[in-house]
């Protein structure tokens, strides 16, 4: 067992997850491929969404993959950073909006 949890080389081994359970992996990769194909949203737009989500879920593999992919698909550094800010804002907002729940609770129990 490696003595660290994340290894950049593991990204390249992703397709090998089918070795333990092939039918599910096949379904996942087929679905994944279709999700990112040209559709009502372009593959280019989807790439930028993926980049933002990758940051929100803080997945180093996805950040690696979609930083390259989004740049290759022509998004500029500034556009990519704005997408990351959108992800951050939603994450930050998601924390803060729970403040309402906190207030509700406090109001409920406070004299």
């Amino acid at each position, binding site marked *: 067992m490696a003595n660290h949890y994340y290894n950049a080389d593991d990204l*390249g081994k992703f397709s090998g997850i089918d070795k333990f359970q092939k039918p599910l992996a096949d379904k996942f990769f087929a679905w994944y491929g279709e999700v990112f194909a*040209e559709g009502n949203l372009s*593959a*280019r737009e989807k790439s930028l969404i993926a980049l933002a989500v990758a940051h929100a879920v803080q997945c180093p593999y996805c950040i690696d993959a979609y930083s*390259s*992919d989004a740049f*290759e*698909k*022509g998004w500029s550094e500034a556009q990519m950073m704005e997408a990351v800010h959108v992800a951050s804002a939603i994450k930050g907002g998601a924390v803060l909006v729970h403040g309402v729940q906190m207030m509700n609770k406090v109001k409920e129990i406070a004299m």
Partner: protein
Amino acid sequence: MKSLKAQQHILSDTHEQIEILEHGINHDDSFKLIPFQQKMEAAGLFPLKPTQLEIFQINVGKMCNQVCKHCHVDAGPDRKEIMTRETMQQCLNILAANPSFKTVDLTGGAPELNPDFRWFVAKIKELDKHIIVRCNLTIILANKKYHDLPEFFKQHSIEVVSSLPFYSKDRTDRQRGDGVFEDSIKALQMLNAVGYGIEGSEQKLNLVYNPAGAFLPSTQDSLEKEFKLVLKKDFDISFHSLYAITNLPISRFLDYLLQSSNYEKYMEKLVTAYNPVAAANVMCRNTVSISWDGFIYDCDFNQMLDMKVDCSAQHISQYSEAVLSNRNIVVNQHCYGCTAGAGSSCGGAVA
């Protein structure tokens, strides 16, 4: 910025480049890739044979008004190698005697900088060949005497193929130099003004996209759509097709890969993306490439690595269609650049 040659850079020695491609940065085989030959054998494509000789590509000189960071020619204002009229005449004799060549593809450097460029074009046209000029766009604005190039191209029914690495200033200038984007846009507008690139027009204007960095081009179709949309909206520019080209790991692009520590990752990317369908359609199968001094190569890349054709007809003075048609094309590790993903050629994707 100077050419590698003018800097007396170690990579201006083609042997050094080949050593790195074959044996890694330290020449010690610590970084090893599957030999390209092995991949081609597995695809039943080795030895690689020509199909039909159709395109006669001529590099009329290495002089250029630009010094792009990725240039596989190591071109620039300091390069003095230039084709003479006498060598051009030898090319014309071959073209006259070999009707299988339908297209003459003129490249450089900036081909227009050759003092005999216009004479040569007129002579090729007399032979009724289709002519492609690889025009870097900025040359049209570089000096007053080139301002009429769009008209000249039109008069000789030339197909213009021009590099525009991106539709934004930032990415273009990073690769091609400060101010290149603005001049390229002006030049494209001048070409549009005489009819080039307009839908339905016979004046064909195709653009070349190549990545400004250590990555592969994304799909040609979607890039074309995006380029068309933005160039029309922002600059009222039209063009016909976009060719997405992969940067080959030689010359100044190799230098960039090494300096930015991207070499190994980039090579792995190319190898992983190897596509046998693209391999079957590589451009060297229907093209021959002629250097400024009249030597014959399988392609412009082999030319820049000084890997001449592997047959007895190595110079235009010894030209023989039969001998060249039967030769084995010389391949090496840089060829992975032509076979990655949708493939890459002077006409863009091939698969």
